[in-house]
């Protein structure tokens, strides 16, 4: 276990290092942020001053070396655009994204799994087929289009829900959250639904396949023969068996959910990290882009590690990192 952890962490550090080099070099070669940030009538002297002040006059290797030295001390640099620490800017925005992603994930689990099971049990009925059609739609419709349709339907036509923004927030343990006020919840519903759509469809498919597979199994036949009620067989025994793959996949997908939030956040002007990074890419604000990707990759690494560990606990046949 310990050897596994050490190996895994050193691999992760390598991944982070390689990623930072790729992003750094990539953004460096796209262009100079000053070309976009500076007033167009600025004199060459003013241009040179701005370039020097942001340290962009140094060779790329020097810039990377400075970045690396600071990064080791936990400083990912100041944003060129906001003149505040990139890490701080991202952490400020993180609660909004996490709240959105968690809400979307809960929606996917609590709507997707029951619907999927229902579709599995009643697979040759009208209901089962409708659920599957819905999941195909959920898979194939582009997120940004669905988001706009939600706004047109629920905000503009029906006037039920606000079209964007985060609404009133209250502090929970020092972190601003929306879900504790009615206004905040109203603002949360549409973007969360938008973000949840794809994962809900995924959960439907996974649990439907799981139910169908399990219903053929001997233990189900045995339980039936024993005279157990259908509710008990499905609600307890089948449920338990389909949960392992569903939770594993959804757990891994959680990282993707945070990354996918970019589109939803832009459409609903949700003040999360995704919107910040999109704006930053537009103006080549390298410190923010690099910091965002480092944080996202770290998050992916941690989630994967946790999934691996939990899996080995759930299933004793799996041994961590034991290939021999």
């Amino acid at each position: 276990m310990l050897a596994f952890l050490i190996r895994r962490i050193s691999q992760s550090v390598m991944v982070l290092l390689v990623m930072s080099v790729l992003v750094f070099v990539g953004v460096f070669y796209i262009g100079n942020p000053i070309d976009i940030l500076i007033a167009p009538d600025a004199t060459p002297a003013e241009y040179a001053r701005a370039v020097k002040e942001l340290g962009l006059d140094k060779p790329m290797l020097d810039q990377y070396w400075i970045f690396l030295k600071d990064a080791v001390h936990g400083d990912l640099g100041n944003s060129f655009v906001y003149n505040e620490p990139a890490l701080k800017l991202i952490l400020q925005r993180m609660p909004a994204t996490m709240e959105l992603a968690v809400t979307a994930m809960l929606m996917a689990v609590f709507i997707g799994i029951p619907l999927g099971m229902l579709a599995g049990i009643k697979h040759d009925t009208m209901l089962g087929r409708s659920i599957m059609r819905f999941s195909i739609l959920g898979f194939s419709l582009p997120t940004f289009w669905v988001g706009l349709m939600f706004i047109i339907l629920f905000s503009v036509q029906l006037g039920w829900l606000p079209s964007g923004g985060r609404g009133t927030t209250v502090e929970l343990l020092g972190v601003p959250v929306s879900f504790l006020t009615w206004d905040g919840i109203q603002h949360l519903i549409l973007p969360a639904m938008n973000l949840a759509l794809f994962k809900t469809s995924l959960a439907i498919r996974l649990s439907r396949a799981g139910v169908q597979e399990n219903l053929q199994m001997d233990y189900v036949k045995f339980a039936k023969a024993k005279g157990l009620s259908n509710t008990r067989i499905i609600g307890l025994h089948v449920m338990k068996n389909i949960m392992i793959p569903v939770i594993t996949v959804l757990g891994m997908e959680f990282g993707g959910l945070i990354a996918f939030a970019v589109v939803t956040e832009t459409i609903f002007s949700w003040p999360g990290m995704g919107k910040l990074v999109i704006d930053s890419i537009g103006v080549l604000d390298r410190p923010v882009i690099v910091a965002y990707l480092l944080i996202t990759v770290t998050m992916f690494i941690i989630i994967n590690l946790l999934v691996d560990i939990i899996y080995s606990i759930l299933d004793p046949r799996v041994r961590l990192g034991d290939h021999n």
Partner: protein
Amino acid sequence: MRKKLLLTLAIVACFAIGATVAQAKTLTLGLKGEPTSLDPHFHNVSANNMQALYIFDKLIRQDNRQKLQPGLAVSWTPVSDKIWEFKLRKGVKFHDGSPFTAEDVKFTLERIPNVPNSPSSFTGFVSTIKNIDIVDANTIRFTTEQPSPLLPRQLAAFTIISKKNAEGASTADFNSGKAAIGTGPYSLVKWDRGDKITYKRNDAYWGEKLPWDEIVVRPITNDGTRVAALKSGDVDLINFVPPADVKHLEKDSKIHLSESPSTRLIYLHLDSDRDDSPTVTGNNGEKIKNPLKDPRVRKAISKAINRKAIAARIMDGLAVPASQMVPDGYEGTSTRLMPEAYDPKGAKKLLAKAGYPDGFKIIIHGPNDRYVNDSDIAQAVAQMLTKIGIKTEVSTMPKSVYFGRASKLEFSLMLLGWATDTGEQSNCLASLLHTYDAEKGFGSANRGRYSNELLDSTLEEALVTVDNDKHNNLIIKATEIGIGETGIVPIHYQVNVWGMKKGLDYNGRTDGYTIPREIVSGK
């Protein structure tokens, strides 16, 4: 029993009405851009400069046609060629109650060149000032190196901060609100980054009556979402209504639109100085001497462009064909210049005269995420040029890549935009048409490297001529030279549209700003 019930109802009704009257009046704005900072001198970019006007005031205001109007200064006069005297408004107080004096002006001007890590500073606006002398609390004199007719224009570019509250303050202190204490119509309550900025009315404001107790600014960058926010009633007013949405919003009985021409010029820059131009080739792909050096070829390109068609079809009518660099009626604009008429036959003749009867090949480069319909305009221009024999390919790219490459002179023919913040023409002449001169700071955006000695000397003379009429005449002369030789090809000025709830009105501004104190409440 019945009476009692009625009485109760009446009392309840009274409370209900009382409650609505007492409720704070809030105006919610949905704006396209979010400022990068609330430090008014950190980043010279329009989203920041506009937000600064909520909290702070300028010495000299620009009205909605960018004419100069008294602000914190009530008058400004040249005492001699190199000295300007400004009389300051008396009795003005900052949000914390401290009085506004000449000390604050001096402090602001001295801070401007020293804002750390500024990606685009205001230093250029104050660099001509050699000495600042405080005569008394309400009088201040600026001594300049050279006679400086543009000084009032330059001092109308930025806002004044409080010495008491901002001494030693960092950009972060402004963002948190600690140092963001101005004399302006609203004071900052809170900035929730990415979500909203909340302001409350400054009851001691020296200027206009302000109908709203509270202003909430929500940054909504996505055009579709911004329009939806207005239609659903989440916001009261939006800026930059996309041209494609104007028609259906006009039919909406709950929405009122207003439009205003802007100083945003869309133009072509042509590589007019080098013999060897990167994307020009002969008809068979062979290398040729750069034809764009010949003013006749440039004129032919200008004549080939159907400006009315671009304005009507591509811009849905939300553009005004341009004859020069700032719209008619601005200071220093020539009344003799007209938008070049669409004349493909004349263009072909000019090409033949210049020695290109069969034209040549070229690539037009442009951004695809910077100006309204930018890549469509580039497409249209390419088709129009191909019609007169200049076979034109189109290449567009994101602004993050485009501007850097354009400044490195990698293009031959490029689509660009220019907005004149100072509201007069010398700014464009100096940046776009004056010969490139890094030392003197001229021609910084002259990506075609057009050069004409007479234009240079005329402009340089104008910039040190304090007499207003003489100054303007020189500017007009320089403009006519540059446009006469087609140093740039002006296409059109964008028209901006604001959308708002019925009952509100906004005249719109040529600089595109949305300023709450100019929004009229019908009720």
